[in-house]
């Protein structure tokens, strides 16, 4: 959870407190499927997927305090690092692997994506879009690193070491040979933004990108 927003309500049946973008991700997951949520925080999404969709949902989280909270809520979460610990999972162990608002904070995004699509049929990836007009405008007008709700830490202390834009991510998928099954641009609250047909507009007006990938 590098962007500092706590996920609340793990394991609780009420979906009231779940982040809207997590709801959006949950809607992409078929019932009864096997899911791994990387950077699962306190497990709100996996708790939701179990309770509402009967999924076998598991989590991987770096922050031990969040892991403890998730396990204390009865959720199966392993403490570990996306950069180093995905290698332990067997091939095709999951139907979906979720990486929500974490890609920009991992050390080796390419390797993490490769591992995700090794251990799972599909990867669901969301990230804050660095190409949003407001960031562009801030950089252009102030000449300094932009500060927004998603990009809210100074450059020297941000965990978000690999920012990218929606366009960048399309390029990466092309270069790596991933099929983009679905994609959405969403605003900071996780509501869908109406730019689906136009990647360039989405890149300008979408605060986050949400992608469903599979290998070719």
């Amino acid at each position, binding site marked *: 959870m590098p962007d500092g927003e706590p996920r609340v309500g793990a394991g609780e049946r009420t979906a009231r407190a779940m982040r809207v973008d997590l709801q959006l991700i949950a809607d992409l997951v078929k019932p009864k499927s096997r899911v791994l949520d990387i950077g699962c925080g306190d497990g709100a999404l996996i708790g939701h997927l179990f309770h509402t969709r009967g999924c*076998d949902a598991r989590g991987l989280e770096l922050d*031990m305090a969040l892991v*403890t909270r*998730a*396990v204390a809520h*009865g959720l*199966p979460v392993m403490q*570990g690092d996306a950069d180093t610990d995905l290698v332990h*999972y067997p091939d095709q162990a999951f139907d979906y692997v979720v990486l929500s608002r974490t890609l920009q904070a991992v050390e080796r995004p390419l390797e993490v994506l490769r591992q995700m699509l090794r251990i799972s049929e599909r990867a669901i990836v969301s990230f804050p879009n660095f190409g949003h007009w407001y960031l562009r405008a801030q950089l252009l007008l102030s000449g300094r690193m932009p500060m927004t709700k998603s990009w809210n830490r100074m450059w020297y202390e941000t965990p978000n070491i690999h920012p990218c834009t929606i366009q960048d991510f399309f390029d990466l998928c092309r270069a790596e040979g991933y099929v983009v099954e679905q994609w959405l641009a969403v605003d900071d609250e996780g509501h869908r933004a109406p730019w689906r047909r136009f990647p360039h507009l989405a890149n300008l007006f979408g605060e986050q990108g949400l992608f469903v990938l599979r290998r070719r």
Partner: protein
Amino acid sequence: MDQLEPFAEIAHQAIVFTEGMALDCGRSLHSLTVAYRTYGRLDADRRNAILICHALTGDQYVAETHPLTGRAGWWSTLVGPGLPIDTDRFFVICANVLGGCMGSTGPRSPHDDKPGEPWGHEFPPVTIRDMVRAQKMLVEHLGIDQLFAVIGGSMGGMQVLEWAATYPEAVFAALPIATAAHHSAQNIAFNEVGRQAIFADPDWCGGEYWRAGAIPARGLAVARMVAHITYLSEAALTRKFGRRLRDATSLTLLGDKFEVESYLQYQGSAFVRRFDANSYLSITRAMDFFDIAAEHGGDLFRAFQGSRTRFCLVSFSSDWLFPTTASREVGNALIRGAANVSFVEIMSDKGHDAFLLDEPDFHRTIAGFLAGCAEHRGLAPRERA
């Protein structure tokens, strides 16, 4: 200390299997006694049973006053009505290990081949798997096909891993706590110091101290003192004792004793009043020989491949006897075997001992994990009056 009598033989609740049991070493016990305690009530469908496995010097008196020492049960903060292992909801079983000295078959039991004599040092070598087989016989005797959970710390955690590897279908959830898939060279080394201390005691009498009506109290106490140091962290020792002196305010070189010295001596002398030296040797050997990967072709993940058991591994940050890296090794092997694993490292400065102490995060983890598993298993929620 040298005048100590062997500790009293008291009656323990036990089941005797007259068919005996075959051991890993190739020998067989003609008869097997398993001493055990239970707490709570077994549901009609027998799905709410939890087996607790005790550590090296623990016993079956997990949640009640100990009949010999008069002290509270060793996990009485964790096991009981309304506690994380809730005896209002679960049927809790704890058995004295094979090779132990609290009523189960062990070196103090009658020798199979020498009428009127105990096994003593001739007790066959036992393994952690032998201990688990004996527990399985008890569990079957109680009419339980599948345990809801098997829980244990330290050597108890080794038994949990062995249960999950040997009887995967009989274990719905497994909680190996502060443990490892094998002893490290350092673990074995500390155990060997303890064993050598026992051998060096003149009252050891070549293992037949019972003939002389003596016990190798000094050696056993030293073994306990060494082991006790490994259970604590430097920070815990410093906080508890620092360099404080016993009955003195300043050091005078002669005669003064540090608090930590008198604490360890107390630990040693209390221990020999409740534990048998030959049992100590048997059980430490079993721990040293335990290597769950070796039992499965040298690859740990094969031990758990395809397991449907839900695992929760717990380690403690300041435990240097069974460090977090040892639990992580087990966790990664489970992940490779596609098992369902939770893994938590609890922040604590109390060393290995933390698993026996009141650590709120640890207790929350146990309670939450069990609640989650109960939901997955469809166990009815606890009835409240």
